[in-house]
């Protein structure tokens, strides 16, 4: 849509300059009416910056064509560690709303960007600053904060969107807040929200049914980013390739992990695109475990580019397949 705006603008320019006679004013108004007019009459699209692809996919479901979405984190990237590119500042400067995960997921890079963007619409507490963790029941909120526990988050584990029941809450929150930012489309957002919720709820039943036979099974992951997924589907993530959040695995830790995996019969490993494939392959060699490509973000693994529902579809089916082996 931005592209069409740009092309129509360049069209205007060529149309003005081609006649090179006194009819400039006429040409100007003509081309304004032809190309820019409809753009002006239709309410302008909302510029929305979303930090992560999972939230972007949900925002797209709720907002549809009304939103012009810019996503800052790539699906294969580690969302904790993003370069605060100046181009992001420009996007944020022009944004009507910022949708973020919150719970310190983006705390390493988002603050200076928002400060540099000088956009009052995105100030903390403004309707346009949408922190998606606000309506979610956060897990693993630490009783005390100490970095000898590794990189823990004061507001709880920030990887909550991957549980469909949380995605429902996030979608509702986004719809509510967008309705405040853009009241003219409030009904639209609500309607699209209902459609998405119904679709997701129907899917949720299917996914739960698919994983029901595997209730209580163990899965190994690199980072502790799946507690919400585990709670949703009755699975267990108790073994991690990193000894503590953000601390790289030592050979001793991996050796201990091999024993623990055998004891707990944890023979499925979630491998995320940006996290420690090599260590996972070492574990496979010594335990015979199955690697399951996994991602928190749509597009992080092949075939999930279309969105959140497709991501969950892929995760659930490949997991069910792995358990069946």
């Amino acid at each position, binding site marked *: 849509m931005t592209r069409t705006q740009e092309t129509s603008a360049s069209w205007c320019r060529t149309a003005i300059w081609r006649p090179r006679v006194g009819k400039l004013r006429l040409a100007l108004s003509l081309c304004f009416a032809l190309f820019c007019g409809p753009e002006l009459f239709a309410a302008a699209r909302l510029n929305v910056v979303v930090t992560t692809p999972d939230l972007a996919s949900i925002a797209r479901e709720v907002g549809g064509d009304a939103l012009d979405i810019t996503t800052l984190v790539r699906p294969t990237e580690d969302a904790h560690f993003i370069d605060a590119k100046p181009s992001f500042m420009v996007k944020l400067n022009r944004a009507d709303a910022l949708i973020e995960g919150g719970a310190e997921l983006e705390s390493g890079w988002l603050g*200076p960007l928002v*400060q540099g963007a000088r956009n*009052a619409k995105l100030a903390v507490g403004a309707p346009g600053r949408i922190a998606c963790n606000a309506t979610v029941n956060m897990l693993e909120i630490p009783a005390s904060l100490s970095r000898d526990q590794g990189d823990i988050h004061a507001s709880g584990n920030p990887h909550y969107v991957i549980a469909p029941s949380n995605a429902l809450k996030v979608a*509702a929150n986004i719809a509510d807040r967008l309705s405040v930012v853009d009241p003219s489309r409030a009904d639209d957002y609500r309607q699209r929200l209902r459609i998405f*919720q119904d679709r997701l709820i129907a899917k949720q039943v299917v996914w739960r049914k698919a994983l029901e036979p595997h209730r209580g099974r163990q899965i190994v992951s690199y980072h502790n980013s799946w507690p919400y997924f585990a709670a949703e589907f009755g699975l267990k993530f108790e073994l991690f390739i990193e000894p503590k959040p953000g601390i*790289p695995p030592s050979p001793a830790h991996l050796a201990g992990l091999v024993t623990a995996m055998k004891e707990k019969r944890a023979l499925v490993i979630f491998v995320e695109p940006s996290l420690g494939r090599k260590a996972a392959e070492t574990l496979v060699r010594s335990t015979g475990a199955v690697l399951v490509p996994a991602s928190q973000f749509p597009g992080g693994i092949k075939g999930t580019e279309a969105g959140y529902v497709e991501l969950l579809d892929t995760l659930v089916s490949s997991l069910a397949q792995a358990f069946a082996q």
Partner: protein
Amino acid sequence: MSLDGSANLTILAGALCLGLAQPGLAQQASEVQELRSQLQRMQAEFDRQQALQRQQIEQLRRQIEALSAPSTNPAAPALPSSSAKAQREEGSRPGWKPSDPIRLAARGGKAYLDLALDVSAVAGASTADDIEGGTQLGGHDPVQRGFTLQGVELGLSGAIDPYFSGQANLLFQIDSSGESFFELEEAYLETSRLPAGLSLRAGQFLSSFGRLNTQHPHAWAFVDTPLANGRFLGPDGLRNLGARLSWLVPTPFFSELSLGVQNSHGETAFNFRNEFEGDPRFHRPQTVGSLASVNDLLFTPRLATSFNLTDRQTLLAGASAAFGPNSSGAGDTDTQIYGADLFWKWTPSTQTRGYPFVSLQTEAMLRRYQAGAFDWDLDGNATVNPDGSELDGDGDGVPDLVTRETLKDYGLYSQLAYGFTRGWVVGLRGEYVDRFHLGGYEASFGSDLERAGRWRVAPNLTWFPSEYSRIRLQYNYDQRRMMGTDHSIWLQFNFALGAHAAHGF
């Protein structure tokens, strides 16, 4: 709230279905679907109510606690997760009691103040005998063989109110004679909601000149200050009291224009009105004088632009200048410093915790320094005073006479960093500083070490056990005209306590 609305609608829809639809398999299926949806929504509403109740219970509990025995409680119990959750929802903070721990670090982004303590220390050795101010020009550099505390920095930052945010950096150091001292590096506020892409900063702050000058040492890729920065912007960097207006230019790519206006005197305005502790510089006495007009302030304009060369490569380029009077003449001599800087970084889309990456940083600077005329014959008797107050550089017994001249110097450094695997970075820096031509005073009284050409090459290796600690080993090969070659090796340890330090690009 929308959940309530949609729940009502669903019930209505369900009722319509029951009333109007003929019984059939398809209808039955959709009915089950509807009921499921309804159940889900009721569940969500139930969760919300429960959270609300938890919150109320927690409030009551806190009231009871506050009323019973707060003073005898030695250590406040850790908050159970439900109460932390309740606070978060409530958006308020519990009243502080003397027995509570002072918790300033961010708790769920709800802190009034982010507090960070950053400690840098270095150990090493050098073949040079004049490390402090000789081979090493920076105020945070190693100053001696053995151990140096490069700095203990206390950083405080946070939103003041909806209109301003504030930041302060307090520096504690131990100098080469073992004396502890304190310095206010930065303390400023910045507006958060000026219109039209404008932003105003006021207070004590590092001038926006080039790239390295505005960074604190914990963000540097090397143990020490580059030679160009040390020589032209000063050991402590260019910083002073003042104000800066910056404008995010409405271009499709990032470009920012800024103008700083600051005091031009003091040791942190190194090449401006700086008294150099009463010592002569460039063979002239230094007189700071007082501010006579607006022109006597330090002006630092800067333009920074950034482009994404590809999806994974970003370039940031800047042009800076610093204009102000200097202390070498009778208030009519100026210094102009010009700078160009470039930063390029590549990170693949499959990065883990920011690795791997390659970055290149280059800065070039040029200084035009107007040096005033001065006759060292203070008492007018054409012979050197025995008390040494009159300089006699050529040793002819007659006090020296220097004429007005413009001294032009330049310098540049370029550094490459390669984060080859998680937590490991290898770096290489090359640098060169020199004068364009020998000054008139140098022709008469000998080459000035402060302007003499020199170059330095420094490879280093850094290991980050976590993002809060790092160990860095660096070797410096120094080549100074008139002084010869020196080798130095430094092992630096840096750690940070407290708030998650977010960094700009």
